[in-house]
């Protein structure tokens, strides 16, 4: 099987709030650190991908943010412009009358147009060999299947025309597991795990994209070994709590309470992790990223996550 970063195009998705953008940012950073010329692209207009590199917001035109790492923000209208320039050798869209204005409308009316302009641009970058690796901070789990299946859907809806001739090579690249892969990001919590398991099934049934990995983010550290846990329980006896509080010069109960919370959270999450591992087939690698108890989410945090991913990938 092809290792994660040896693929050329990685889509990163996940339920809201699980850290999809963090993982996409870190994977791209890791790729660049490995000497790959890397493009990272945010698809969501309201995204904050640039924050993870502590740089100003990305635009459609890519910009180098770290050595070998380029960032861009998807803009379907500009993507259409570029496409028309390349394919039809048309000068600028402004010259074809109401096309630019009508675009938004047609895109709303005809399902898949926006999606195919997004996916099309990214696959094009890969085909043209401008980058060794393209990492996409893609749409959330609810919409990713629609995005990845767009070329197929368009292929079925549109029987002739230029678009039809374009979707064929796109489907080839998207369907090649050595080239393209999907990463699902989840946290070990109930709903993200449920959504991940559902998504795995839908991706298999409705798209031809290979599942490259599931990244489990925010895994909590194990506090105690078995005998230490017994020791902790013992220390919770009122007499010892009193004695410890006297020795420490203050009430130890809140500190113990926090530990108990950490232990229970860890246990609940471990249960969801087991459910996830049992619920998806064993050929899909699971990568674990620990919870970052950090103050901010800037470049430093992105580097830490990239390091965790590197050790999970044995690089």
């Amino acid at each position: 099987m092809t290792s994660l970063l040896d693929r050329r195009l990685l889509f990163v998705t996940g339920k809201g709030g699980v850290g999809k953008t963090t993982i996409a940012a870190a994977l791209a950073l890791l790729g660049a650190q490995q000497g790959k010329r890397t493009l990272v692209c945010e698809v969501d207009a309201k995204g904050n991908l640039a924050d993870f590199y502590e740089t100003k917001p990305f635009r459609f035109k890519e910009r180098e943010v770290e050595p070998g790492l380029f960032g861009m923000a998807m803009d379907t209208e500009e993507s259409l412009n570029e496409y028309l320039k390349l394919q039809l050798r048309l000068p600028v869209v402004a010259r074809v009358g109401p096309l630019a204005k009508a675009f938004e409308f047609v895109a709303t009316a005809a399902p898949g147009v926006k999606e195919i302009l997004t996916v099309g641009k990214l696959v094009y970058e890969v085909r043209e060999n401008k980058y060794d690796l393209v990492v996409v901070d893609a749409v959330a789990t609810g919409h990713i299947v629609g995005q990845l299946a767009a070329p197929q859907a368009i292929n079925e809806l549109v029987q002739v025309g230029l678009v039809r001739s374009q979707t064929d090579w796109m489907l080839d690249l998207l369907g090649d597991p050595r080239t393209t892969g999907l990463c699902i990001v989840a946290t070990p919590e109930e709903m993200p795990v449920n959504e991940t398991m559902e998504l795995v099934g839908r991706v298999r049934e409705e798209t031809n994209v290979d599942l490259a990995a599931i990244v489990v983010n925010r895994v909590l550290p194990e506090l105690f070994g078995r005998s230490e846990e017994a020791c902790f329980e013992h220390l919770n006896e009122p007499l010892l709590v009193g004695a410890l509080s006297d020795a420490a010069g203050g009430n130890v109960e809140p500190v113990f309470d926090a530990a108990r919370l950490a232990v229970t959270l860890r246990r609940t999450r471990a249960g969801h992790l087991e459910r996830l591992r049992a619920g998806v087939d064993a050929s899909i690698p699971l990568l674990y990223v620990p919870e970052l108890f950090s103050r901010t989410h800037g470049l430093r945090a992105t580097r830490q996550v990239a390091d965790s991913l590197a050790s999970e990938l044995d690089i």
Partner: protein
Amino acid sequence: MAGSGSPKRRATDAIGTMESLLATKEIVISAGSGGVGKTTTAAAAAAMAAVHLGGRVLVLTVDPARRLANALGLEGFGNIEKRVPDEAFKSAGVTPRGEMWAAMLDTKQSWDALVMRHAPNEDVVNQILANPLYQNVAGRFVQSHDYIAMERLYDIHTTGNYDLIVVDTPPTRNAIDFLEAPERMADFFSSRLLRWLTAPARSRVVNFATKPFYQVADRILGTRFLDDIAQFFLLFQTMYDGFVERSRAVEHLLHDRRTSFMVVSTLEAAPLHEAEFFISTLRSMDFQLGALVLNKVLPAYLLDGSATAVAQRMQREPGELASALGPDAGDPQEIARVLREVADSFLRFQVVAKREGEQRKELATVPDVVATVPYFDSDIYDLAGLLRLGEQIWR
């Protein structure tokens, strides 16, 4: 009442608690970004209202969480409302004063119902339902999901069957999308662009201005596909009047004094930012903001000064503290290891609690009701769990 124009917030609107909010409103809409516990909070609020306030309370959800159905003692629920059985309340140890009902939005079914209501005759209904583009629009098109949720809410509200409806909103990328959905839908069907688009189906004579557009569109998409689109919109246009009228009514209901919003968030940066943006949008669009619910808040003792001093000492001198307990307490080395680990964990979580505390302070405007829900250390499996959460936001 409806008809008095868009109502402004007055000082007398001040509502102190979630209890009084749910007691005085007919519709409470739960909104926020994904993963913050919106659905669970909506269900908990509805359950509390059914138990303590009485009347008929409906929770309308868009999230097909099987666990929620189980928690409500239902086998599952769909577009048609189902009553939460009394046994579910009984096993939670309460006797509700009222009734709790639940329904889940089925986008496709709701769209079909809409078409059947507005289409001029059965022939048009059949043609629309059979159109391949309709299948796509009704099933996948995200904005249609937003619209249909509000449309379905209007539908249920006008039946007058419920005293209170708590609505969970669709997981949109942009939480305000669904607020604008009715207006956008109306605009969509009245657009001049729509006429451009549908022109070729009516006549092949295209004027000078639009000709290049069709040439390009033809080359990109192919004529047949364009014709499919055109046919679909021509069919939809027959429903135009009914549709627009309905959209306006939905919009009006959302602005009504009887409707209020409950914004749900955690104290993490991204959802909180989204919540703030949503709150300011609600204000500027003249919607009523009833409450802010902050979920998964870490316990306050993590910020306690004396507890911090203890944790720091424990981290620095675990061995001394362990030996102070005497030999009867157990192996001093193991105790020291445990104390060290416990202290580390406290201080790690404190970093997060501090960050979240700062973010909370930065909230510029907050509604009258701000409810804080502590980090529950286990998942909610049943009605008792929902009510436990509900207790946290009630007063």
